[in-house]
């Protein structure tokens, strides 16, 4: 089975590379320049795509957390751990890109917008769950706790979002997300970016999980050797 997986990986990587190149073409050449914001609006495509992958990754972590608790197989724990890590990477990218977009457009690096605030808060939470795994303790317990935390975290995302949105509507928002009309060609660029990033997520998960499995094998072998040492 692992042989099959290794055979399939180059294929997936190749597909991802094609999708990424196409998305770059769609974003920079195919999509028209936005009238008000100019070229800087092109940040939008990758910003949305990385935010989407962040969300997807935390969703996958929640699902694999549930599966771990049901099946107790270390395989699902490796999926949870990898997905949280990659979700954190993409959420952080989304935050930084958002910031780099907000600066020229709204003249500020940061706004306490519901989406941004929720992402920031949940990033801090997920980073702590990763830190928890490094504090030692038994692998089995880390897996169990990791699963529970990924479930609780994901369930909490919409509640945090709702709370912050209610909070913003009561405080008059200084800056509103000024909507812009999405031309069909822009939509193509957006979809291309979403697809490319999702494929990228699959690739990263694949390699990350493989490394985690390797790590497990190596430490198992190492202990077997020390255990039989006369």
């Amino acid at each position, binding site marked *: 089975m692992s042989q099959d997986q290794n055979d399939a990986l180059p294929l997936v990587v190749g597909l991802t590379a094609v999708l990424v190149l196409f998305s770059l073409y769609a974003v920079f050449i195919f999509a028209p320049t936005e009238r008000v914001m100019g070229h*800087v609006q092109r940040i939008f495509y990758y*910003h949305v795509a*990385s935010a989407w992958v962040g969300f997807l990754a935390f969703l996958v972590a929640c699902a694999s957390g549930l599966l771990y608790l049901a099946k107790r197989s270390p395989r699902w724990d490796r999926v949870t751990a990898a997905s949280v890590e990659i979700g954190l990477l993409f959420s952080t*990218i989304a935050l930084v890109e958002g910031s780099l*977009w907000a*600066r020229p457009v709204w003249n500020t690096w940061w706004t306490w917008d519901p989406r941004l605030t929720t992402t920031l808060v949940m990033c801090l939470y997920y980073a702590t769950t990763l830190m928890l795994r490094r504090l030692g303790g038994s692998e089995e317990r880390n897996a169990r706790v990791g699963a529970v935390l990924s479930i609780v975290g994901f369930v909490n995302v919409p509640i945090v979002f709702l709370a912050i949105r209610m909070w913003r509507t009561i405080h008059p928002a200084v800056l509103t997300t000024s909507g812009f009309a999405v031309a069909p060609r822009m939509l193509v660029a957006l979809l291309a970016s979403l697809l490319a990033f999702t494929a*990228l997520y699959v690739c*990263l998960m694949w390699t990350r999980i493989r490394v985690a499995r390797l790590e497990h094998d190596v430490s198992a072998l190492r202990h077997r*050797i020390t255990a039989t040492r006369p």
Partner: protein
Amino acid sequence: MSNLVYLAAAYAVAWLAICAYLFGIARRQRRLERELDRLQRTVEGKTQQGETVR
């Protein structure tokens, strides 16, 4: 025109972060594969000496 700086920065940040992450994983994988190789040789050496490895 200076807006292009932000555009470039945003895309640079995204790709740099992803590449850095991939590079980290790849390095870890290489290190682990070397280690696995070394350990497997140790195990083979031991079994040749007539020891059983549990």
